């Protein structure tokens, strides 16, 4: 069930990228898609247990797999920096293309 929701999020994001016209909306759709991917990593990490994997004297039972969590932390940072970079690019484009419609920008900028 949870897995289906996660995939639905990824697909929603993907279709958003294709169907939305506005460049900012496209970037937000990409963010939705990456949220789905992050959720999927968290889901897989918690297959065998739910507790935070922190070393301590008390045994609290099955803990979550730390590897996917560590990996996705890297991916979140990368994704966030890429989005920041893209938004800066969009800001620059917005001066000459105030509507930010990707098809219009594309028409104006392809030889």
């Amino acid at each position, binding site marked *: 069930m949870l897995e289906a929701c996660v995939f639905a999020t990824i697909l929603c994001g*993907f279709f958003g990228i*294709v169907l939305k016209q506005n460049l900012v909306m496209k970037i937000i759709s990409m963010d939705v898609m990456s949220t789905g991917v992050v959720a999927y990593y968290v889901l897989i990490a918690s297959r065998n247990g739910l507790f935070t994997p922190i070393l301590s004297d008390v045994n609290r039972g099955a803990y979550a797999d730390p590897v996917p969590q560590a990996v996705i932390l890297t*991916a979140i940072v990368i994704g966030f920096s890429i989005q920041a*970079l893209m938004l800066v*690019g969009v800001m620059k484009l917005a001066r000459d293309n105030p509507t930010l419609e990707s098809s219009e920008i594309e028409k*104006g900028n392809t030889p």
Partner: protein
Amino acid sequence: MNIITIAWIVLPFFLGFVIYLCPRFDRSLALVTSLASAAYAVLLFTQPIPVALQLLDHFGVTLIADSLSGFFILTNALVTMAVLFYCWQSGKSAFFYAQATILHGSVNAAFVCSDFISLYVALEVLSIAAFLLIAYPRTDRSIWVALRYLFVSNTAMLFYLVGAVLVYQTHHSFSFAGLQDAPIEAVALLFLGLLVKGGIFVSGLWLPLTHSESETPVSALLSGVVVKAGVYPLLRCALVLEEFDPIVRLFGVGTALLGVGYAVFEKDTKRMLAFHTVSQLGFILAAPVVGGFYALTHGLVKSALFLIAGALPSRNFKELQHRPIHTPIWIALVMASFSISGFPMLSGFGAKVLTMKSLAPWQPMAMNLAALGTAISFAKFIFLPHKSQESASVKPGFWAAVILLIGGLLIANVVYFEAYTLANIAKPLAIIGLGWVAYFAIFRRTTVKLPRVLEEFDHLIGVMSLMLILLFWMVWA
């Protein structure tokens, strides 16, 4: 050797940030990194066994450096060096050199990775650095082209990440070998990411616009090495796991034909070169065992061609027919064109012969067709008018860069000098001759303009879903 490997991977990133701190030494520091890579590649060729590193545990970072990566690293070193020579006097800011150094470092890292997550990190750092380099002129067009590049590659990498975690789920390890009995959807998702990143087949159609609209040195970097960061893992997968070898070969053939099909009708120099990058990547994939050497020759020749195309008086072939180019430039252009068409004396010949030898039985027909297409489209360059009196107006570093690259092409002949037999020499000559005849008979006059629908942004993203289905079906079958 392990310590040297790690130091060599870290060096470009370290120096890249040092360049920000001491902008006065920007060019020399960037040159040091590329020299270090060249030295490391030579060191790799002398190693009897591949360098394999496993940091942390089975789920940690794994690196493998052997002669295949050696070829790719050497390509990276030489192309970066040539681009630095080209830009030496151009007054580019320290920012440009810092990004070029970081790009160099991330491409290097991608060439030794042997697990999916280190590869992911390397590819993402590479896209950020490439984005900044493409957008360096700060014009609207360059920003749009860069944004489009980053968008397409980041979307593909999201699919890739899902594939990576599925591999982890089956094996509790991210290494390439884990692909063995991973679920089919994992393979399809990972391959989709790599195909888009490497500019292969229909999903690689973002490449022509990106490579043709960037500045000359940046196009040379992108076409020469950056796309190969996506191709190398595919080769590695095909070599590690037998069952993916046919899929990779099939994509090789498909992309070789697709690229050439577009290139023969192209009327713009830089776009034609970019389409040829697509097609030559197909040659690299068509025979994974010998892909490294082909990648080296292609990297050298394509960056040389992009640098030379930047020195031509126009980008339009029609106009170039009426505007003679300076003879020395023409000679360099013809040498590079001959190498890429597979003419003896230059290492493009050895690479082509080696590739043709390692093909599967069903491939040669299609690859010969692609080679014919290459000869046809480069006839457009070879038969341009030239004149010696014309005053040369090239950038100061131009000749240093082009001589380095073409010299590299000549020296690389030693890798496979056994290729020089009569039968081997006759075949490319026949193909080139046939190509020239076809050029004069048909393609010189045609004015077919192929539609560019598939290169539109929305379609690039949409095609990813179709490719995913295709890949799924291919792995399943």
